[in-house]
């Protein structure tokens, strides 16, 4: 049975059909890379996979179970990195991350900060971080989440080359442990043998008729 799969997905945003007849399948250890021009529905698909949006047609299943039937149970298995970093300016880096860490896992926060090169900044308030550092702090949430599926929307925005390589290493280790990934990006994420999903293949050919 496929671990995570979507069949015949379609999504309508603001009266416009963003994509239709979209299928995907993801096994443990695999990665999907979403590509496509701006507005082609990469973020929409990721938000749909995270359960914020419901598809207008088709269904998404996790281990054979439709995810929207028990959304809470499914959402425990995912970690979503969106455009917003969810960082509080008055909390320190360690406090910001500690809030998202699972209970009863001491050292996980420190380890995550270490892996993203944020250890020296642990006691610095969030408002003083640069945009690349904010992004790294947001990515550190992946490591404290214990999620099986990582959903990443443009994870490398603002990152320098060294941090992109660091992220690639983190992604590789996650996959070696049987985790899976769906990422959208315009730049090379350095993800090896990812399944490419071109959003333009699922674009709706003609604009729908306007209904007044």
């Amino acid at each position, binding site marked *: 049975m496929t671990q995570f799969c979507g069949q015949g997905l379609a999504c309508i945003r603001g009266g416009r059909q963003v994509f239709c007849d979209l299928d995907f399948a993801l096994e443990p250890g695999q990665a999907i890379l979403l590509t496509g021009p701006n507005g082609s529905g990469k973020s929409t698909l990721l938000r749909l996979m995270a359960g914020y949006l419901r598809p207008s047609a088709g269904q998404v299943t996790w281990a054979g179970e439709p995810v929207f039937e028990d959304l809470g149970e499914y959402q425990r298995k995912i970690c979503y990195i*969106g455009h917003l970093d969810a960082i509080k300016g008055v*909390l320190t880096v360690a406090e910001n991350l500690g809030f998202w860490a699972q209970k009863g896992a001491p050292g996980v926060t420190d380890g995550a900060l270490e892996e993203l090169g944020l250890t020296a900044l642990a006691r610095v308030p969030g408002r003083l971080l640069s945009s690349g550092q904010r992004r790294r702090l947001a990515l550190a949430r992946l490591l404290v989440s214990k999620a099986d599926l990582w959903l990443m929307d443009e994870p490398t925005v603002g990152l320098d080359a060294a941090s992109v390589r660091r992220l690639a290493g983190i992604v590789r280790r996650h996959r070696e442990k049987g985790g899976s990934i769906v990422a959208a990006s315009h730049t090379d994420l350095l993800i090896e043998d990812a399944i490419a999903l071109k959003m333009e293949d699922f674009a709706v050919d003609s604009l729908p008729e306007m209904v007044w």
Partner: protein
Amino acid sequence: MTLKKVIARDLRLALRQKTDAATVVLFFALTAALFPFAIGPEAAILLRIAPGVIWVTALLSVLLSLERLFLADFEDGTLELMFLSSLPLELVVFGKVLAHWLVSGLPLIVATPLIAILYGLPFAALTVMLPALLLGTAALSLIGAIGAALTIGARRGGILVPLLVLPLYIPVLIFGIAATDAGISDGAIKAPLMILSALLLGMLFVAPLASGVALRQALE
């Protein structure tokens, strides 16, 4: 993520930004202190208007503090991550409202004895007014949370919140003042206090549910 964590985090955020909470209680004390200047020092009149002035001012102070209840977390993406966490959104709402009440509602109650001195309220009135305010401000915070959640995606939501919420505040106002008046004139305090408790209990159930629905809508 647990309920305790949500509450602890919001309290910590409030402690690091003390001006936000201080603004609310200062607004309350200063506005309530204006009336004696405007109306004059006649003790009988001041005693008559005191319950109304204190309740209306407390209500407006709660209203003033509501806009930011969910907005800051919505804008920086915290709320959408909370939606994904194992804690149901309704409990997140409950935790945030509780923390909000502890830093904005409770200081109002602490400041009320000062205002009471200004109006020459007898001590006996205060023993009724403080419990009534305790129940009332908590209900006001919960009702306000629905308004704050509904206006989260709207521009100029800050202006919409009072329009939505003020009509819903009227029952709390009526019974809060009824209890306080009864405390001054040695009337029956039990009935209004029980109705206030009922309003609070009802809101404890309804407000997290309604706010949860509104927040889910906003996150779509």
